[in-house]
């Protein structure tokens, strides 16, 4: 798969490392060249400096050949705009967009974007962890001294 990741944040860099280690062709896009330092040292993908809401930057990142596009910057509105450009202008089949605001998440799901809300996903995981039966042999808390 040929994937473009917009935003080399913690999420973006981990995601890029995962996909690249599975043998996918990965291009990471970020406005800040320093952000690429978060990528794993053996990262085998391509990095492009630029803003993903600019069509020409997306073309430079190879969007016309991309199978997948993930918008995971810290800027929610930029994620939404870039995801819609990828989906509707470049017809990328798999587009995932990170949105924090639950009402906007719903709106853009209904408008055909696949959205991920990290707060909701995080809360669900914590919720599951809290409700899980404690292990039978529970570890004693470490004693000081």
């Amino acid at each position, binding site marked *: 798969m040929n994937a473009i990741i917009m935003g080399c944040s913690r999420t973006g860099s981990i995601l890029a490392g995962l996909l690249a280690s599975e043998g996918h062709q990965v291009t990471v896009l970020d406005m800040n060249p320093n952000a690429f330092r978060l990528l794993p040292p053996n990262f085998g993908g391509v990095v492009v400096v630029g803003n993903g*809401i*600019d*069509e*020409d930057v997306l073309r430079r990142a190879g969007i016309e050949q991309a199978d997948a596009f993930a918008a995971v910057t810290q*800027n*929610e*509105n*930029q994620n*939404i*705009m870039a995801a*819609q*450009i990828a989906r*509707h*202008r470049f017809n990328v089949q798999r587009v995932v967009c990170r949105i924090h*605001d639950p*009402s*906007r998440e719903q*709106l853009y799901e*209904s*408008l055909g974007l696949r959205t991920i809300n990290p707060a909701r996903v995080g809360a669900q995981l914590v919720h599951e962890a809290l409700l899980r039966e404690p292990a039978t042999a529970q570890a004693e808390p470490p004693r000081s001294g």
Partner: protein
Amino acid sequence: MYNIIVGGGKVGYFLARGLLDQGHEVLIVERDPAKCEMLTEEFGSVVLQGDGCETAVLDEAGAARAENFISVTGDDEVNLVACQVAKHLFHVPRAIARINNPKNEPIFLKIGIDFTVSSTNVILEHIEEELPAYPLVHLLRLLDGTAYGIVEVKVPLGAQVVGRRLRDLRLPHPSQVLLIVKRGGMPTVPAPDTMLEADDDLVALTSPETAEQLRAVLTDGATRS
């Protein structure tokens, strides 16, 4: 008529002033508290501090009863999302987005923002009009979503089309010459055998894709001034 304006910068300020002067109801949504204070001082209590893309903020603004929703911030992504939220969640009849980067115009139209105003293009068009040597001037963009526009092209001295009849020209499709203004300012409705002369001003309907070809047909061969 109730109008919500997102963005209290220069464009938002003058827009609000114009609408208020005409007696319309206006609310400005602005994120920056300092700007809000300044606007309130000037206009009174027609300012709401908050993010115009947030559903809760637009709910508080009474977006559901707004007739016009106009997003004029300097960030295209904000204008896009604010208009989409207003349109789809609050069913505002008319959502208008300012576009700062002209490249974004097609995508705004494609994803359903009905009205866009490209501030950069508007400024460029006005400058073009002031530059006499500029061969193609955008006069008007038709707002019905077809993206057709009306342009003006001056036939320069030495152009290949000088002395030829309109019907013999290979004009790109779609484009249509609507009016010819002859030297001295006399406007003529063009007929197929109207002869073109140097310095004729042609007013034509065209699409953005064919505007450049139209200019080329009408100006090729001219000695650059």
